C-alpha cells in the first residue's frame, strides 16, 4: 500500500480520512486493541483493563467500535479519562452497530474521534471491514489482539500490521477456548506475548519514568479473583462457562443448593452468566483494595 509516513512511523492511507471529533489525536503512541465481537468475559475484562492502563500511560487507544473486544477497549480508555479513536467500516455519520451510539458519543465527548476512509452515508458492507482493518493497522504503532477465533477479522488487522512492519502482540487464553486459537497462533508465529500493560509499553519503548508513574500497581497480573469464600468459585473458570448441573456433578452437591449458591455469588458480583452457564467474574486489580 502506498502511503505517506509521518514522523512517528505511522502511515497515513491514501484516501483522505473523514472524522468526527478531534482528529488527529494528541501526540503519543497509538495502540490498536482488536478481537472477537463475542468474547468471553475474560477477554472483555482483559481488553478493558489493558486499554485503561495504556490510556493512563498516555497511549491513544484505537479500535473498531464493534461489539465485544472493541467496545471493551474504547470503554477502558474512556474509564481512564484517556483518548480513544474508533476506526469505522461505515461512514462516520453511521454508527454500526447502533447499540454503540452512546459509546460513540462518549468517545467524541472525551476528546477522541470517529474516523473513516469511507464517504459519509456508507452503510455497513462486509467487504469494507477488511479495508478498515488495514487502515487501523496503518494508523497504529502496535496492534494488540485479545481473543480471536480462527478466521476472525482481528487476524486480518494483525496480518496487515505485519505487512506494514508494525508490532503485533497477543493476549494468551485458555487452550480449551476456541477464542484462543487465533491469538495462540499469532504468539506461536512470533507475536509478542502480553501478560500486562507493561509488556505493551515496553514494546513501544516508553521510558521507565512514564512507565513507573501511572502504573505503580501492576505487580502481579493486574487482575484479582473475587474475594468470596464459597468453594464453588475455585471450580469455575474465567473463560469457559460451566452450567449449574456441571458444577453440581463436580462437587457432588444437590442442584437446588448449587443454584442458590451460584445466584448468591452472582448477586455479590463474584460470578457472571455467560453463554448459558457461569464464569468467575474478574475484578480489576485496582479495585482489590
Amino acid at each position: 500500500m502506498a502511503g505517506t509516513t509521518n514522523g512517528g512511523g505511522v502511515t497515513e492511507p491514501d484516501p483522505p480520512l473523514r472524522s468526527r471529533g478531534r482528529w488527529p489525536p494528541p501526540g503519543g503512541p497509538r495502540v490498536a486493541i482488536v478481537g472477537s465481537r463475542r468474547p468471553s468475559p475474560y477477554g472483555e475484562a482483559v481488553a478493558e483493563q489493558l486499554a485503561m492502563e495504556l490510556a493512563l500511560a498516555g497511549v491513544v487507544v484505537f479500535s473498531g467500535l464493534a461489539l465485544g473486544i472493541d467496545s471493551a477497549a474504547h470503554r477502558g480508555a474512556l474509564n481512564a479519562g484517556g483518548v480513544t479513536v474508533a476506526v469505522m467500516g461505515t461512514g462516520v455519520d453511521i454508527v454500526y452497530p447502533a447499540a454503540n451510539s452512546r459509546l460513540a458519543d462518549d468517545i467524541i465527548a472525551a476528546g477522541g474521534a470517529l474516523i473513516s476512509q469511507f464517504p459519509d452515508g456508507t452503510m455497513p458492507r462486509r467487504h469494507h471491514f477488511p479495508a478498515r482493518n488495514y487502515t487501523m493497522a496503518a494508523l497504529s504503532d502496535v496492534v494488540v489482539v485479545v481473543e480471536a477465533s480462527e478466521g476472525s477479522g482481528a487476524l486480518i488487522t494483525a496480518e496487515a500490521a505485519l505487512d506494514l512492519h508494525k508490532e503485533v502482540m497477543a493476549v494468551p487464553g485458555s487452550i480449551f477456548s476456541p477464542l484462543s486459537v487465533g491469538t495462540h497462533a499469532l504468539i506461536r508465529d512470533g507475536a509478542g506475548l502480553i501478560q500486562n500493560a507493561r509488556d505493551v509499553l515496553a514494546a513501544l519503548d516508553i521510558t521507565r519514568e512514564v512507565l513507573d508513574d501511572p502504573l505503580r500497581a501492576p505487580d502481579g497480573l493486574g487482575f484479582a479473583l473475587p474475594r468470596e469464600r464459597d468453594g464453588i468459585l475455585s471450580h469455575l473458570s474465567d473463560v469457559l462457562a460451566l452450567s449449574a448441573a456441571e458444577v453440581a456433578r463436580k462437587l457432588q452437591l444437590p442442584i437446588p443448593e448449587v443454584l442458590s449458591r451460584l445466584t448468591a455469588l452472582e448477586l455479590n458480583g463474584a460470578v457472571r452468566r455467560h453463554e448459558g452457564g457461569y464464569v468467575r467474574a474478574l475484578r480489576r486489580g485496582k479495585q482489590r483494595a
Partner: protein
Amino acid sequence: MLGSVDSCLLVGLETRRVEVQAHIGRGGDAGFFLVGLAATSVKEARERVRSAIKNSGLEYPRTRLAVNLAPAELRKEGSGLDLPIAVAIALARYGKLPPARSAFIGELSLDGGVRHVDGVLVAVRGLRDLGYERVFVPAEDAAEAALVDGVEVIPCISLIRVVAHLIGEVPIAAASPTRPQTLLEPGSFEHDLAEVHGQEEGKRALEVAAAGGHHLLFSGPPGSGKTMLARCLPGILPPLELDEALEVAQVRSVLGELERERPLDWTRPFRAPHHGVSMAGLIGGGSGLAQPGEISRAHHGVLFLDELAEFQTPVLQALRQPLETGRVRITRSAGSVVYPARFTLVAATNPCPCGWAGDGVRTCRCTPAAVNTYQRRLSGPLLDRIDLQVAVRRLKLETLAGEPHGEASASVRERVVAARGRQMDRQGGLNAQLRPARLRQVAGLAPASRHTLERWAEQRGLTARGFHRAWRVARTVADLEGSDQIQDHHVLEALGFRLSEAAA
C-alpha cells in the same frame, strides 16, 4: 298428527336444547319440509330419515310432512338430529307422546341403523344439567355417555328398536354406568426422568414447573435434550382428577377423538404442534363454529412448542389470552364459542439461528446482530408469562455413554403432589396463578429473603413483573421443601432460573 321430541346441539362445549316437532298432514302433496334454520348438513337429514324409516319397515307418510326445529334462531348443524327427527315422525304416526324428560341424539344410516356422533359426552352432561333424566344415544357412544352420573343412558342400535321401545313393545335396557378405571400405575409413562442423562438443572426446573404450574422455557443447541426433558413433564404431574379427566374427554369428544373403549384417560395430555401450525390449528378455528385447537387439546396437560422463534408472531401473540385466563374465546361466522385451555407451556428454543452459541465444541457462526434479532423475537409479552428459563447444554460423550443415574419420575412426582397439596390447602390454587395482591397475602417473605429479592431487583433493574415472577417461583421452591416461610435460599434458587445476565 303431531309428534315432538327433545334433542340438543353443541355450541363449543355448551349444550343448547332443541325441540323437534313433526306434523303429518291429512292431505296435500307428499313432501318433506324441514324448517328452523337448518344448515346443509341438517337438510341432508331428510334423505337419511326417509330411507331409514322405509328400510326399517315403518310406514312413511304419503301426505305432507313438516318438521320444525325449534328454537328457530339457533342455527342447526351436524347429523345428530337424524334420530330425533325420525322418532318425532314415528311418534306422530303412532299418535304417541314421547317419554318425559328424555332426549335423543344420533345419526341414521340409510338402513335404519343408529350411528356415532361426536360430542356425546358433552351433550349428555349438558342435558343432565338442563334437567333431562333419560338420553337415547347411539349404542357405540353409550360407554362415553354413561360416564355422566345422574342420567339414564339408553343405547340405540337401530331406529326400529327405538320405536319398539317407545311404543312399549320391546324395551331396551339402560346402559350400566361406566366406572372410571382405577388410577394409572406409577412408572407407566413412556418417558421417565431416570432415563435422562445429566441435565440436573433442566430436571429441577421441570420439578418446580410441575409443582407450581409454572410455564417453562428451555434454551440450548440442537440435540441437547430439550424435547426429551419436555416429554418427561406429564410423568411428574399428578394424574388427572375425575372432573379434570371429564373436561379433557369433553374436548376430545367434540373433536370425535375419544377412544370408544376407554373414554376416560388419566394421563395428562401432551401436545407438541409443529412450528408451522396455523392460528386455527393452535388456538382453534375452522368455518362455521370453531373447533378446539391444540391449546384446548392440551387442557390440564402440557403444550410443548419446540423452536419457539420459528412460530409465526401472530400465532404466538394469540397465546396471551389463554395463558392469562385458562380459556379461549373464538368467534366465527356461526357464533362465538369458549373452550378451556389451561395448560403448562413448555417452550424450547435454540440460543441463536445456527443453534450453536454457547456450545462447548461447535462454534456459532451467527453475527452478533443476528443473535440479537433472533432473541428479540422471543422477548416480549409471551416471555413475560414464562416463569422459569433454563439453559440446556450438550453433554460430553463420556456422560452419555454411562448409565443415567437420575431420580425416577415416580419419586419426583411424590414431591410434586405434596407441594401442590400445600398450595391447594393454603390458597386453593397453584402458585403460578397467584396475582400480586394474593401473593403478598399468602406468600410472605422472611426479612432476609425480602432483602435478597429487593437487592437483586435494584441491582438488575428488575421490572415489577419480573419481581413477582421470582417471588412466585420462590414460593414453589419453598413448597417443594415443605417450608411455610420463603427462605433466602428459595429466593436465590428462583432467581437462578433465567437465561442471561439480564434482569429477566
